[in-house]
């Protein structure tokens, strides 16, 4: 019984990861809603984590360092999303008409 890893070449995972990462880049650059930018960042972090884990499984079978890094990526993503939403809530409360639109909160002080 072959495992799935033996049937799927490493490139497939790298392909999907590259596409997900580029979609995240597109989202960060084109979206104007702060929460949607945050979600695009999450997409990019996920793509990176997939890359780490794929490399760990395919090329580092004994130490699987990439898998540990995948765990840390998820930890940092959780911390980041909590903080970023706190900031977005704060901006929303202080600047009510902006509707989370980052173009309207471009100044650093108000």
């Amino acid at each position: 019984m072959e495992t799935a890893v033996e049937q799927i070449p490493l490139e497939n995972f790298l392909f999907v990861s590259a596409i997900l990462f580029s979609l995240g880049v597109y989202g960060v650059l084109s979206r104007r809603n702060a929460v949607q930018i945050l979600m695009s960042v999450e997409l990019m972090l996920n793509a990176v984590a997939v890359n780490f884990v794929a490399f760990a499984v395919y090329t580092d079978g004994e130490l699987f360092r990439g898998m540990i890094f995948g765990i840390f990526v998820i930890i940092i993503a959780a911390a980041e999303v909590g903080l970023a939403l706190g900031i977005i809530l704060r901006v929303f409360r202080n600047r009510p008409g902006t509707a989370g639109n980052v173009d309207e909160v471009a100044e650093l002080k108000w």
Partner: protein
Amino acid sequence: MTVAEVVFYLLALLSVIAAVGVVTVPNVVHAALFLILSLLGVAGFYILLSSEFLALVQVLIYGGAVATIILFGLMLTGGRDLPAVGPGAQWPLALLVSGALVVLLLTAVLNTTWPRDAGEMTLISINTLGSVLFREWLLPFELASLVLLVALIGAVVISSQEERES
């Protein structure tokens, strides 16, 4: 085509289409739901890579916590009633940049020779992962705990109700 390949392509289709939804739909709540779908697809990748622990963590943290936080944030900011904020004026440029990036990455992946056979594929059990995490990676692990604590306190402090001094 083996079963694993079929599953892989289905998961890839699911996560990529959902990711396209995240970055294109104007409604933020729909985008958040698409994000959950995409993250669950990635959890499926982890299972295919025989990393069950990461798949579990992915579903728990992303599918559970992060998605809930985002939806809560949207509700607290009245996300449903907000006018949908469309893409900014720079979206063609963004499309160009991300298109160039994906072409670059895909050609890089194609032009590199990756190890064909995975060699001794040892399945990494949760037991091994746990003992390695708490032995060799103890310091980064504790630092990550500290980061989470700081983020927790920071989020509470930033979003607390205190009035801004005027």
